[in-house]
Every structure is written in structure tokens, then in C-alpha cells.
């Protein structure tokens, strides 16, 4: 080859380099994806196998005789501790906790973001900084103080019960968990919405003011309808965190039939009587993970988009 490469050979070597680059990049990405998906795959195939096949077969092989029995057992028969009624009750416990907690914390975060960007008051940066601080508090450090507060609320609930015949949900474990998750989610939801609304054109708010819309009318008619990406981000984030939370759940609703899914799953897997039914355990774990998976699949593309939108300006 001469010292000065001809344009054609340069182009050819350039194309070859690109192809090699591509192979390396996609190869690595594929490898990581396989590595990451392996546990899910094992869980999924195991949950459809019989115990015989699990004990005698290969962990990675596909089930020879696929069966839904482990799923049915996990849903309605499996023992969590001493009660053997399946996961379904705990699944609904989690739903009853996660839906209000996500909705309330998202709505309050949106309201906070709206006020912190469009209705600025003296010291708004300080307030925002303090709310951000909530994101960095380790949850372990608030377990005991929160238990004290929840205890007082419970006693207040009893007083109300005696006085009015209704306790307004105070002292109820699910209500307690909703309260805790709303309080500790607020820092994050406020952060998300504040950054999103920071880039939101203030002229729209001014125009609505001139049009005669009130504080809440502007929020409901102008801000919320234009916040879909960040609402999706916040809902996914909050849903995943609250659904998967084990610490608060086990601390404040760790026994009896009020347990959320995560605690119940732990009890199922840790039951030490008899043979360990891996297929049932795997099916139970899959049931516990399904809602977050579905939320990601349905709304995942908004998640990335919304995170980017918040990241560009804020």
C-alpha cells in the first residue's frame, strides 16, 4: 500500500472499522442484557415446572410439561406463616396502599411544583431546598420517630372512635402506610414537578390570570393537562418505590392480614416447614413483581422522555 491511501481504500477501511465497532457495541449490549434478564428467565421457567422437574432437571431448561398449578397455588393456597390462603389478599392490600399513596403524593408534588415556580414567594428557594433534603434522609433513621407519630395518631383515632363512632381511618395499618409513603414521596414528586414547571412558559399562567382563572382553575385547566410526561414519570417512580417497599411495610404492617405483598412474599419464602416449593415461590415472586413490570411496559417510553424533559432545564 502506498503512503497516501486512495480515497476508495480509505472509505473501505472506514466502513470495516464501523462494522467492527457495531459488532463490539451490540455484542456487549446483548451480553449485558442476557446477564440482566437471566434471573427473570429462571424465575419464569421455574414457576411453570413441576417439583419433579425442578429437582431432576436443568435450571435453565424450558419446562417439559408446563403447568399453571404453582401460580394457582401461589395466588390462593400458599401459606404465609400459619395462614394458608394464598397471596391474593396481600396483593389487594398492596393495591389499596399503593393507589392512594401514588395519587396523593403525585397531586401534592404537582401542587408544590406549581407554587414553587409560578407563585413565587419570599424564601421559595429555601423551602425547595428543604423539600429536596427529604430525598436524602435514610428511611431507617425515621423508623422510630414515625412509629411514635403513628402510635399517637392511632390513639387519637381511638378517641375519635369513642367520641363520634368513626375513627376516620386513623390507626388503620393501610392508612398509616399511605401516610408514610406520601410524606416520604413528597420530596421526589416536588422535585420532579418543580423542574418540569420551571421550563413551563409562565406567559400561559399570566394569560389565564388575565382570562380570569383562579389559582386552582389554572392548576386544573392549564398546568395538569400539559404535564402528562412528568405525571407518568412520577407515577412510575412512586408506584415502583411504594410497591416494592419492604422496610416501612414490615415495620408498620408486618403481621396479620394487613401485610402488603412484599412482607407476605418474604413470609412465604421463609416458611421452613416441609419441602421448599421453588415453583410456588417463584410464581409468588412473579405475582409480586407483575404490577411494576406492567406499569413500565405500558408507560416506559414516557418515563425516559419525561426524565429528559426535566433534565434539559431546571
Amino acid at each position, binding site marked *: 500500500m502506498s503512503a497516501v491511501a486512495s480515497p476508495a481504500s480509505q472509505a473501505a477501511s472506514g466502513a470495516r472499522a464501523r462494522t467492527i465497532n457495531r459488532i463490539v457495541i451490540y455484542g456487549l449490549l446483548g451480553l449485558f442484557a442476557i446477564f440482566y434478564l437471566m434471573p427473570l428467565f429462571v424465575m419464569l421457567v421455574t414457576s411453570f415446572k413441576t417439583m419433579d422437574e425442578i429437582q431432576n432437571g436443568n435450571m435453565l431448561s424450558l419446562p417439559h410439561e408446563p403447568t399453571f398449578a404453582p401460580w394457582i397455588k401461589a395466588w390462593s393456597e400458599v401459606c404465609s406463616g400459619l395462614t394458608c390462603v394464598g397471596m391474593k389478599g396481600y396483593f389487594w392490600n398492596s393495591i389499596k396502599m399503593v393507589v392512594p399513596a401514588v395519587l396523593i403524593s403525585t397531586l401534592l408534588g404537582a401542587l408544590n411544583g406549581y407554587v414553587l415556580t409560578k407563585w413565587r414567594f419570599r424564601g421559595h428557594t429555601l423551602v425547595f431546598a428543604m423539600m429536596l433534603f427529604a430525598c436524602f434522609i435514610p428511611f431507617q433513621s425515621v423508623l422510630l420517630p414515625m412509629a411514635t407519630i403513628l402510635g399517637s395518631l392511632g390513639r387519637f383515632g381511638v378517641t375519635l372512635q369513642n367520641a363520634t363512632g368513626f375513627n376516620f381511618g386513623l390507626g388503620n395499618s393501610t392508612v398509616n402506610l399511605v401516610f408514610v409513603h406520601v410524606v416520604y414521596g413528597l420530596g421526589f414528586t416536588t422535585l420532579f414537578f418543580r423542574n418540569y414547571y420551571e421550563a413551563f412558559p409562565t406567559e400561559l399562567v399570566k394569560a389565564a*390570570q388575565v382570562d380570569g382563572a383562579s389559582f386552582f382553575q389554572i392548576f386544573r385547566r392549564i398546568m395538569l393537562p400539559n404535564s402528562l410526561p412528568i405525571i407518568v414519570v412520577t407515577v412510575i417512580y412512586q408506584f415502583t418505590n411504594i410497591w416494592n417497599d419492604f422496610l416501612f411495610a414490615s415495620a408498620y404492617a408486618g403481621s396479620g392480614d394487613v401485610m402488603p405483598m412484599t412482607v407476605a412474599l418474604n413470609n412465604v419464602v421463609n416458611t421452613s416447614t416441609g419441602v421448599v416449593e421453588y415453583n410456588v415461590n417463584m410464581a409468588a415472586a412473579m405475582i409480586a413483581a407483575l404490577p411494576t413490570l406492567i406499569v413500565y411496559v405500558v408507560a416506559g417510553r414516557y418515563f425516559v422522555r419525561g426524565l429528559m424533559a426535566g433534565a434539559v432545564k431546571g
Partner: protein
Amino acid sequence: MAFLEIDGLKKRFGNVEILKGIDVELEKGGFLVLVGPSGCGKSTLLNTIAGLEQITEGEIRVDGRAINDLHPSKRDIAMVFQSYALYPNMTVAGNIAFGMEMRGVPAAERQAAIDKVAKILQIGHLLNRKPSQLSGGQRQRVAMGRALVRDPKLFLFDEPLSNLDAKLRVDMRIEIKRLHATTGTTIVYVTHDQIEAMTLATKIAVMRDGEVQQFGTPAEIYNNPTNIFVADFMGSPAMNLIPAKIDANGSGLSVVLDREARQPIVLPMPGAPTGLAAFKDKPVIFGVRPEALTDPEGAERNGSNIATADCHIEVVEPAGSDTFAVTNLGGKGVVARLRADANIQPGTSTPLAFNLSKAVFFDPATEKRIL
């Protein structure tokens, strides 16, 4: 009594005074343009009229009623924003009707009002679209429709044309002027573009650093600027502001303009302003607009005081409708506006006619007009 009166309006942010005592008034059906460079406080002034910003001192009255403590929605005003501020989640019809909806106007009445405005602005075919599906000019029209439909006492426009391309801007400018002529509304309009100010206004307030530099009709502002800032800001190309000296000889005053390596030009000033006598042998700023400095054939035939002098032409800029020639007087480039077909070559000397009845003088120390 004027329709809109702004009295001694001051606005402070902490210790910084943004508006330093504004006094402006506008008759009913007038078109007031607030013009000035960015940061002069013109948008802040508009926002205080709208009620989107609070004032520190002074009073704003519309139709004899003080409005400065009222909520924006209670002031009976409508505003067109620079970014149009159309609600992205609503259709065009929804945008136009939003204000009425907030005021509890019945649906049938709203629909009638939408149809009427859509007809005026020719946006009937767009009513079911979202703002994202509209072009810049259409958005502009919808924004005006949203203001028009309210039939308010006062319209506020905040740089409404600055987001449009040059050609569309001219079209929309004419449209706004036509709208003003047909509907007879009272308008306050903010812009940094002096051509918009000249073409649209019945009254102009030229602002700088939170103060009104001059308030008057477009002709007053253009022909009789009160200071160097106004003279320089209004008009394109800008007024030539030439350092000069006043000389007195037997018959009267004359203006002396220095030139590089040549005899100075001496222009006799028979109708000079009386204040000019005090500046004998002192430096002044001699202001002459490019159209008052032209080829002798193109000069106004009936100009009362025209003087001609040979000038060395450095640059020639043919602009199609006119030809601009740049010469050097008093150490500054001076632009003359000639006829399009003027036969002129750079690097040559040619006689230029000074229309001295249109000339103005400024005191270089105070920058104020010498009267």
C-alpha cells in the same frame, strides 16, 4: 380627561427602581406604542397596566377609574403575549372561549362570540385545531382573537410580532392597523422595533432606563426629537449625528463641519433655533436625517433652506428603492439617501444637498435638544 392615564408610576424591586415615574395618557380609541431598547422597562410598564406586576407608587386609571389595585381579571383588559401563550391542551375555539368560560358566560353566547371573532380574523376553519397544528401567523391571529372576543376597554400587546419572520411581520402589522381602524379599540403596544412604533402608533412613548424620554405623536418624535437618544433610536437608517461647531459672521449663524484633509463645510443657518446663539464657537451635535441629505435633484423643491456642498463619497449602497451613500463629516460616517437611479460612484466627489430646515442641534454635554 384621557381614557388611559398613568400618573407618576414607580416600580421598585427591592432597592432597584425599574420605572422612575411614568406619566403617559391616551385618548379613547388611541394606539399607544411603548418603544425602547431591551431592559428599558416597557414590558414591565405593560405588565403593571395588566396587573401582572404590582406598582410601588402612582396611579393607573382607565375611563376615570383607578385600576392599579384590581386583580388582572377585574380590569377589563385583554392581553396578547409575545409567545402568544395559547393553551396547548385546548382547541382554538377552547382558547378563544376560555376567558368567557371562566366568567360563566353561557355556552350559546360563547359560541356566538367565537363565530363573530373567527369571521373578523378569518380563522373559522381553524377552530377545531390545537395550537401545535397552526403556523406562526395563525397562532398570532388566534391570540388576537382571544383578546378581541372579550371586547375589553383596553388591549395590551407585548411584542406580538417579534416571533414572526420578516415578511409575515409586515403583513400582520398591517392587519393590526386595519383591526384598530375597523374596531376602534384602545391599544397599548410594546415593541423594540421603531418601524412598528412609527407605523402603528397614534402616540409613542420612547423609553430608556425606566424613564419616558419623549412622549408624542410619531411625527413629533421623528421630526422633533428632544434628545440624542430619541433621535438615534427612531428612524432607519438612523439620524446622522455629526460633531460640529457654530460660527457667527455678519449675516447670522453658520454650522462648520470638519472634514479630513479638506476645507471644512460651512452651512449658513438663517432660520437657526434661538438657543443656538449661545453655542457660538462651541461644539454642538448637528443632526440630519439621511433623507434630508440627498442629491440636489432629489432635494425637496420647496425646502426653505437648502445648502449644497461637495462631499467625498466613500461607500455606495444601492438598496433598490433608494441608494445610500456614505461620506465622512466631522470624523463620522454620514449616510445620505439618494434616488435609486442617482449616478454616483464611490471614491468621487459629488454635491449633496442639506435640507437645513429639517436639521436639529443637540448640546453634547447634556445630550438635550437646542431649541
